[in-house]
């Protein structure tokens, strides 16, 4: 793998036989990098896998985000992306019909500062990100720990939730690099034993991230 930085020529002759991928641009006949990163080639496609940069949302990603704003028809969620993501009231399950009718305010379901786990439903060309949850009430994460790691270390997988039954803990690995660790079910406070276990898990996640290791929940299960 070759490392390039902004403005470096990747391919001097790129008019035919080369497909321009992410992080590249054409200058005259040559293909140059527009971001710092590692060059990857898939057949004709040439792209630059960036070293840095925020999370780039894609449909189907499971993310952990924080509610930053409550609007009459939607919540705005910070998922560590370039723009805030929107969680519409309409996608948020049964409790929301009541809210829509005005019987219950949407703030009583999710308020500013709450952490939620959601799935990316759509990403529009102008960068608008729409989220989806099955049940707004159940999507809210109870108090716990949030560990932030580079988003590239969590790849989309079948399993994003790690259940640690012996300790009564649950961890959600968001594709946006936010890892939540907290209690399995219920909103009661953690006991001393649980706190110790949770911080051990948080330390482990941080240590793996600092070594640049991928965080795969399915494999983590064997580690704990």
């Amino acid at each position: 793998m070759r490392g390039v930085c902004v403005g470096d020529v990747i391919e001097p002759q790129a008019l035919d036989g080369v497909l321009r991928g992410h992080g590249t641009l054409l200058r005259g006949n040559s293909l140059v990098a527009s971001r710092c990163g590692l060059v990857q080639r898939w057949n004709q496609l040439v792209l630059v896998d960036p070293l840095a940069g925020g999370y780039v949302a894609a449909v189907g990603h499971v993310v952990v985000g924080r509610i930053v704003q409550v609007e009459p028809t939607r919540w705005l969620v910070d998922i560590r992306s370039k723009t805030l993501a929107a969680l519409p009231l309409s996608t948020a399950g049964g409790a929301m019909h009541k809210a829509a009718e005005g019987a219950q305010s949407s703030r009583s379901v999710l308020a500013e500062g709450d952490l939620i786990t959601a799935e990316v439903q759509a990403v529009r060309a102008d960068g608008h990100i729409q989220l989806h949850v099955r049940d707004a009430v159940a999507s809210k994460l109870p108090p716990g720990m949030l560990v932030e790691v580079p988003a590239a270390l969590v790849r989309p997988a079948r399993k994003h939730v790690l259940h640690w039954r012996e300790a009564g803990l649950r961890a959600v690995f968001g594709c946006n690099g936010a890892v939540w660790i907290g209690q399995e079910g219920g909103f009661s406070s953690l006991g001393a034993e649980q706190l110790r276990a949770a911080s051990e898990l948080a330390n482990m996640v941080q240590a793996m991230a600092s070594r640049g290791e991928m965080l795969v929940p399915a494999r983590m299960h064997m580690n704990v």
Partner: protein
Amino acid sequence: MAGLEQQPLLTDGHRRDGRAYEEFRNVFLNTGVISQASGSAYAEFNNTKVMVGVYGPRQSERKVGYSEQGRISVDVKLATFATRQRGVFGQTPEERELSALLATALEAATNLASFPKATADVYVLVLEAGGAELAVAATAAALALADAGIEMFDLVTACSVSRAEGALLLDPTTDEAAREEAGLTLALMPACSEVTQLVSRGPWSSSQLREALELAMGGCAQLDALARQVLKTAAAEAATRRQQEAQRQAQQA
């Protein structure tokens, strides 16, 4: 003080700090110096020390309104202890001008269409102002933008040239710039030879200006080589890390 000013800036082909006319001060560039920022850079040209942090791109505030293109907001701050005379609290007109000049130099090089509705905040802190602050800040800010993974057309490097005592001086210090007859600051995208910012001060004849611009372009190219080396080292380190990770995964499987 009066005695000092009568001393010449240049004596037999050398400047007061011993440099030749077309020589840079000692240059040090580094990235990734602020862990909390999306990207950061530190530049030191002897007594000019600049720290830049880039935050975002993050969603623009509601009051700025919708825009298809991203924005770059630049805030230059001279530390109160940066200049010989102690600075004042709050933004000075000088800082505001530097911010505006820097914003132009960076906007032209950034692919603003890659972050619609969002703003990248660039905070520049001049720790010590020893001359050519705009040029050093532009070089460092472009490095920080690249470090933040923001899409750019090319790196930006900038340098200053002063004409003093009849000679063209590359990368002037505060003393030299204070006694210049004319001066200019050029910000350039060296790989595609496009100018993103040119600030000219004082009277120039066209032949002198051409000569000064050529000198500045040469200086920018020199800085570009160094800036690229800094970024490449980071990329090479990442490549090694990724290979090690792939090997680890292969062993586990």
